[in-house]
């Protein structure tokens, strides 16, 4: 086996996790009543296991292919983005579409803000945000007739 430094250990770990996912799929197929439902997921679980295992072997021989992604930036802002989006989505059925969307828009504006808050921005940004939320609300609910969530609490 090559003594060359192994590149892309993260990729090999993800490949191992994917093998686990494929095994989970194989286990799930044992509960199907009709064998027609199982044949396709079983076949492609096999493909996933083979491709992932082959990548792990490639990695063991020191030939892993690492993408040149340099990690930088604020992890906290990334986590806040996802958290706010999930929280806003969960709140929609309870407090309604517009009452949930306006705070989400405001919070995301704060998370993405790198420039100093001037008087102009303090006045104009909330107006633009409200206009965008209301604009999309009318486009979807009135023009495209999409039934947007209404408040269950009130």
């Amino acid at each position, binding site marked *: 086996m090559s003594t060359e430094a192994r590149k892309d250990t993260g990729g090999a770990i993800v490949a191992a996790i994917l093998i686990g996912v494929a095994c989970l799929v194989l286990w799930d197929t044992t509960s199907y009543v009709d064998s027609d439902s199982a044949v396709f997921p079983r076949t492609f679980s096999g493909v996933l296991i083979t491709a992932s295992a082959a990548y792990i072997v490639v990695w063991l021989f020191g030939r892993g292919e690492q*993408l040149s*992604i340099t990690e930088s930036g604020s992890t906290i802002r990334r986590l806040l983005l996802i958290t706010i989006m999930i929280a806003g989505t969960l709140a929609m059925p309870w407090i309604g579409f517009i009452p949930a969307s306006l705070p989400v828009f405001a919070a995301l504006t704060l998370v993405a803000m790198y420039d100093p808050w001037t008087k102009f921005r303090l006045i104009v940004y909330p107006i633009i945000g409200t206009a965008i939320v209301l604009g999309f609300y009318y486009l979807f609910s009135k023009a495209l007739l999409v039934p947007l969530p209404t408040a269950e609490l009130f």
Partner: protein
Amino acid sequence: MPGLEYLIDALTPINLAFALLGVIAGTVIGAIPGLTATMSVAVLVPLTFAMPTSSALILMGAIYTGAIYGGAYSAILLNTPGTPSAIATTFDGYPLAKKGEGNFAITIACLASVTGGLIGAVALLTLAPPLSKVALAFGPVEYFWLAIFGLTLIAALAEGSLLKGIAGGALGLLLSCIGVAEVAGDVRLTFGFHTMLGGIQIVVALIGLYCIPVLIDLVAAPGHHLNVVTGASGYRLRDAVRYLWGDKFNAMRSSVIGTIVGILPGAGGSIASLVAYSEARRTARPGQIYGKGEPGGIVASESANNATVGGGFIPTLVLGIPGTPPDAVILGALLVQGVRTGPSLFTQQGDIVYTFIWGLILATILMLPTGLLIGRYAYRTIITLPKSLLVPTIAFMTIIGSYAISNNINDVLIMIVLGAGGWVLARFGFTPSPIVLGLILGPIAESGFVQAWTIGTATDDRMGMFFGRPISIAIILFTLFTLLSPIVLKRLKRIKEQAHVD
């Protein structure tokens, strides 16, 4: 040219107005991630019931063609394909926009879309009956192999390791199995979560896997989303025309590929644009580096996906088999109007069908000025909007767009979780394109696979069923060529270099 006498009917002010309105509406709708061509056509179907049949068809066809082009805006400016057929547009469109050439990329996309759209529509006008026979030559096993061919193409084309691409494609196929099985009705891979019963909607995955990672990276650091090259403003129409003329064989070949793939029901623009992109990359001239911002990649993808519009109408009108999902909606509207599709449509109701085809050609031509105008506006909006407004706006669009697919909050949650997961996978070289394409092609692949498996089992000739039919053998050979050619070429290059050193 057949049906030339109906050109005058298509040129009436009302039909022209419908064509223009349809193209504008379609372009705007297609540019918004989550709003698909199918949805936009479906929403407008009830409005068309009171219209003359040919005008209704022109409006729906114009929306459809505009939406397919509109998908390029978000692919180029946000790295998020507005429609599945714009996946290949992201490969070179976004890198080109990142370099500060976003306006050039959008103009190239517009010109290529018009070229592809016209070639597809002319094929519909002149060759519809003979070409429709292609659709009938494909059985379930051929569709299965076609889906696998599409997946190997994207595994080979996507950045990074081929093995990771194959694993991503297989993962996408497995994700497409979540929910109630179409073939036998078993509940699969939900692990007790009712949220997962409906499965993963394709557009939800498309938004999550492409758009959320862009947002995660956008929010993490200051600085502009796209670079802006000073002194290179405006439409850059002259540069784009010059480039397209130099790359005319790519545009023509991609349009022909798009037309032929469009004829195959279910295959659609995503496979067409990938096959065309693969061919463009394979025949690249020296100096053309695909995947790093090569305009030829946009030409291939956009001309192919717009050519599928005309191609998709061929089996729809001649055989009554919709080529793509929007075609299925339009077919439904035609049936409501009392139009009987079939080979006799062109002779018995030529006034309707030829007026519609000319209307589609006019709508495609109108896409040039409207597409350039809307594209420039979209580009200027994206580069001038401060990040603190761009991030919440895109995030808000992803939420409302994924909700609107089936009016379900669970889809939004799935979108966000998939997006965060996709961002993590991309860090380790598992790019989103194979996963998304696996999800898109999963239902076609499974239906073909299970049918072929059942027939093969019943006739005790499974191997012959999968590997013994002429079209299947041809597709398998193309698939093997796609998978093995990069490895063989790399090996040959190494041997050549070694010989040179020696």
